[in-house]
């Protein structure tokens, strides 16, 4: 049903095909899109090409194995893969397991909400626009921050991370899970 909604990005469609149908062609499409970007992204932290490729390999394998955790109502595929990549990078470089929050899983029977998925994609598009309108020095600082190269003090000295309204959108996505959330506190 979702696949007919051409407005939903092809990355999301591929990821859902991997998640729900274990679709290898879709996985190959994700690889072709993300692997070169991941390699470039990881190499910006000073990793060698070979080390970056090892991390990319691990990240893409995690994408396949943990696909069930992907929830398009809250995250773009790129956001989900970004976090996997950062976690893996920390595991490799610092040899420590990154603490992660309890997971909130969707009710197995819950129907996808295409309007929420589209809204998240639109908000993420706004983030990209905001990024591309930054001055090069500002953008470089933000990149450093999200590549793990700034401390929280250094980040707090920077004004205005362009997070826009995406927080409230994601919150709506999380509200879908309120059934489960009730048990959390």
């Amino acid at each position, binding site marked *: 049903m979702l696949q007919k909604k051409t407005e939903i990005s092809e990355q999301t469609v591929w990821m859902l095909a991997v998640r729900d149908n274990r679709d290898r062609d879709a996985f190959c499409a994700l690889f072709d899109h993300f692997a070169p970007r991941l390699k470039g992204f990881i190499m910006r932290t000073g990793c060698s090409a070979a080390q970056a490729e090892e991390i990319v390999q691990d990240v893409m394998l995690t994408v396949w194995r943990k696909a069930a955790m992907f929830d398009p109502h809250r995250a773009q595929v790129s956001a989900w893969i970004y976090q996997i990549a950062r976690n893996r990078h920390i595991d490799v470089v610092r040899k420590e397991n990154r*603490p992660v929050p309890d997971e909130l899983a969707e009710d197995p029977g819950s129907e996808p909400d295409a309007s929420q998925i589209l809204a998240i994609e639109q908000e993420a598009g706004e983030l990209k626009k905001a990024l591309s309108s930054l001055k090069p020095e500002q953008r470089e600082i933000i990149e450093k921050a999200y590549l793990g190269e700034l401390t929280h003090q250094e980040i*707090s000295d920077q004004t205005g991370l362009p997070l826009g309204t995406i927080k409230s959108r994601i919150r709506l996505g999380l509200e879908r899970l309120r059934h489960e959330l009730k048990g959390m506190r």
Partner: protein
Amino acid sequence: MSAITHHIPDAILAAYTSGSLPHHYAVAVASHVSLCLQCRASLEAHQNMGGALLDATDRVAVSGHMKADLLAQLDAPVTPEPVYTRQGIYPRPVVEALKGQDPRWKSVGMGVRQSILSETKEGSVRLLYIPPGQAVPDHGHNGMEMTLVLQGSFSDETGHFGVGDIEIANEDLDHTPTADPGEACICLAATDAPLRFNALMPRLLQPFFRI
């Protein structure tokens, strides 16, 4: 149960998302996010920001054999890693640090107990058990101190903290958190090491007691 009113600032969430936040603080942040919808939404916003940057990164071609290598691994059997989940009042990051065991409480005096989850040169994270009405012994900390309430509540000079609330104090704050009457207060506390309980013993002795 009352709503969470003390949250994590954006800069700290961004540092946590990117992985630059030291491990002991990351345990506290991940624990608060486990309990707090608002900070979870903020964290996921930061992840989307990271995703936008990833998507806009210049591509670097990967080796030709990589995709085939990867496809060959998709069906390989996976040894499952232990997956920890919330147990009672303890969110996943705490359960993981305890490796699924119960906390091993040690007295630090005046009815206050602690269970150290991890301690390195960089910092430490521990559980504190404070009897109702009891003040946390006077303590100093280098740098930032994060205190997340898991059970009961406490108050100090800056306000009132209930379950899920996190206090983030810098080193200038000389505070005396006191457990509210009623239930014992159990907190997760992350500090740059060492946490010094000033009133209990001379500072020089403290390394022997691992406080």
